[in-house]
């Protein structure tokens, strides 16, 4: 009987065990700690370097300065290299890489409002991107830069962060239902 149980567990390992590097029981405790540490590292270096994605595009379009843009490109390339390496070392934790091949070219990684069509996700990506780009230029930086400037004592950025806090709640009370309804009504 023990052998049967073992075989069953082995065959259904992927269903019984959470994917990823550690068990789910451990992960639910460690995730806040690990994200806090990674945030501290990113925040420290972001303050020292002035890292900013929207600032990178702005400086390049206005002055052809590439310093910040190079940072964003380096992040994009290293994100790909890193998941490629970890996918080869621990396939179970990165089983949906590369996403476009496994899940389809026009299916997004979850994050945007669920259950919409591919066309709707492309429209949302374009509109969302344009909105972020315009606002980011007017307030002088992307969300990460605003957090770092808040940490530097800039009270304007603190109000921006406050806006983001209130915006998080407003999104789920108002925006997500409104926009999803709009797409459903338009049949997109």
């Amino acid at each position: 009987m023990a052998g049967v149980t073992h075989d069953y567990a082995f065959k259904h390992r992927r269903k019984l065990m959470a994917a990823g590097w550690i068990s789910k029981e451990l992960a639910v405790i460690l995730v806040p700690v690990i994200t806090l540490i990674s945030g501290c590292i990113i925040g420290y270096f972001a303050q020292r370097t002035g890292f900013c994605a929207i600032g990178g595009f702005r400086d390049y379009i206005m002055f052809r300065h590439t310093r910040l843009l190079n940072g964003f490109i380096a992040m994009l390339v290293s994100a790909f290299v890193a998941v490629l390496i970890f996918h080869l070392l621990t396939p179970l934790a990165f089983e949906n890489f590369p996403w476009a091949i496994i899940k389809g070219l026009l299916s997004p990684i979850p994050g945007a409002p669920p259950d919409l069509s591919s066309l709707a996700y492309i429209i949302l990506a374009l509109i969302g991107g344009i909105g972020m780009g315009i606002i980011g230029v007017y307030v002088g930086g992307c969300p990460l830069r605003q957090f770092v400037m808040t940490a530097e004592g800039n009270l304007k950025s603190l109000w921006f962060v406050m806006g983001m806090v209130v915006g998080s709640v407003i999104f789920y009370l108002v925006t997500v239902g409104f926009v999803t309804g709009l797409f459903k009504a338009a049949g997109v």
Partner: protein
Amino acid sequence: MNNLKNLLNGQKGPIILGIIIGFLAAIVQGFTISAGGPEAYGFCALCHTRDLVNGLLNISLGTGLGLATVSKAAILPVMTMVGVLIGGFVAAKRSREFRIKHALLKDILVYFIGGVLLMQFGLLFGACPYRAALRLGYGDFIALFGIIGIIVGVWLALLMIMRSNTGGN
């Protein structure tokens, strides 16, 4: 130590941080996937703020505001943005760059409304510029449309600013 300071201030500084974020995000993903994902969620200035706010409200007030699976499953939501504030503050203090800069009433309104609106646009797309890069790196080509959108948005804003500066006729 001085060498590191010059390196980070110099031309190569952002490249170094870009590489750090790319690898750090993949490492964090190894852990967040265990608690429920989603993918390419190692770092996001928008989504992690949303998770933190909505997660803490859900825990303290019993509300059911939306957030990522990992933050719903974990004992506390992702703490990345708290870390960014701590890390940024330590760096600013150490380099004597911490200075309170006051805001006028007009600034408060513009920045607060800007923050609210940016959150709506970002969450509709499901990523900030950084998670857009992580998603594209993971092979999600919808994210490419988001990055194109951001570049178009920056270009439009610069066009509007230059027009209003030159008289705007």
